[in-house]
């Protein structure tokens, strides 16, 4: 593997979780995320010659991801209503600000999923294991779509709170 290839793989590996999260937010489903992410990775590799190493890599990769998502939309992919360009740019900046330590907090995710109440865990499974949209989950569980949407929001809030409390506990333990 030559130096340039090593460099791009190293940068891409570090950036990939944020790029994946950004793309997932734009396209709404894991299946589409994977397709757009693949297109993004190819574009990053192909255009790496134009990347300025003096500048941060993540915003450059996120810009390519924005274009890949827009290309998918132009090709006829059924994507959710898009955010404005200004909003997407603001999100790019926010991802750039997120530190790797923020992403490391997600190490607590597995334990926190296990701690979810049974119904929240079921909604979580259907949404993420099967990549189902709320309307389909509602159909399967005999609930209203709006109820499922609220349940998904509640489930993610519970997970966020659980992760934060575990991080705090770990930090307190480390300080002693």
């Amino acid at each position, binding site marked *: 593997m030559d130096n340039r290839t090593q460099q791009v793989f190293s940068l891409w590996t570090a950036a990939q*979780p*944020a790029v*994946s*999260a*950004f793309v*997932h*937010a734009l*396209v*709404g*489903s*894991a*299946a*589409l*995320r*994977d*397709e*757009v992410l693949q*297109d993004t990775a190819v574009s990053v590799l192909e255009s790496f010659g134009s990347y300025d190493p003096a500048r941060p890599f993540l915003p450059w990769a996120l810009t390519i991801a924005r274009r890949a998502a827009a290309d*998918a939309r132009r*090709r*006829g*992919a*059924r*994507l*959710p*209503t*898009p*955010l*404005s360009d*200004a*909003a997407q740019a*603001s*999100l790019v*900046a*926010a*991802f750039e*600000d*997120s530190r790797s330590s*923020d992403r490391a907090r*997600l190490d607590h*995710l597995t334990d926190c*999923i296990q701690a979810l109440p049974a119904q929240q865990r079921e909604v*979580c499974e259907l*949404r*993420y*294991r*099967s*990549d189902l*949209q*709320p*309307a*389909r989950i509602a159909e399967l569980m005999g609930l209203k*779509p709006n109820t499922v*949407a609220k349940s*998904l*929001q509640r489930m*993610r809030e519970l*997970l*966020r709170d659980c*992760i934060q409390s575990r991080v705090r506990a770990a930090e307190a333990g480390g300080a002693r």
Partner: protein
Amino acid sequence: MNPDRHHLRSLAHAMLDGTLDESGSELLSDALATDPALAREVAELALLHDALSREHSAAIIGRNTARRLAAWSIVRRACAAAAVLAVAGVLLWTGLRTSPTASASDVVARLVARAREGDRTYTLRAVTVDDAGGGRRRRDAAPVASDADSAVGRGKQPSIDGAILTVRDPDRYVLVRTDSEGRRVISGCDGNRAWTVREDGTVRTSKDLRRFSGAVPGSKFDLPFLNPGDALAELGASYDIAIVPAAPAMGQPWPRIVGTRRVDARGGPRDIEIAYDASSLVIRSMRLGNLPQARGGPRAVDFELRDEWSQPDSFYGHAAHHTADRPIIEE
């Protein structure tokens, strides 16, 4: 009126679930563009959302890897979803012979071993909304052209919506489509040669049996009509499958095999649904649902049984579908 933070958070969750409508998108866009703290919050939420997806994906990959390593190579595992589309093709060929109480895996096992017989003709419908009860259909849902299909088409591709597909195992099919100007485009294979006939053009033939199969739903994901055993075996590996009993009161007169693609299987339809008649033992309908959308094409394709009339062998050859004076190009 400025939306409150609570409402904006709900909109952010709706965005992640793909349910954000136009007005919600405008509100959220305006807020994100001017509020870096909100953008940071949404970015963290998006990281959690994506990590959840990967967490569940990783669990399944781990489970399936253990199950499959004995039988399948890593390469074949990576191609599982593409291969499972072959199941769709095979099911059209084979018909289904099973008791109503058989388990889904029993059904699959029988399909693997099942001798194929007879001709079946299906009407294809392109569906824009994945709603088994009342999907809206569209008339302009032409599939993305494959390389092979591009050679056939000139201008706008003929639609698969309303197309008629007749199949016989092994390797025989005839697909009749209509283009935007009402002209018929017929493609098929007689087991030895693939061919395509345009109403106003030449006849093309090829020894590559899959040369003109690009228009058949699923073929762009490598739907092979040539190696059904492997593909059937992949059904259980790539999809979570179950049998759903008939529910006439709910508009479901036939029992169904319902398959949901596992997260580690890539590239095929997310859902497969096969309705079969337990007494006459044939597939009544099939849906390839939630097809990959990154390159366009319909959201879902329905196959509805039209008839089981036997066709003469010559029906699967190109000569049955054009006059004798048409020029023939052998590729």
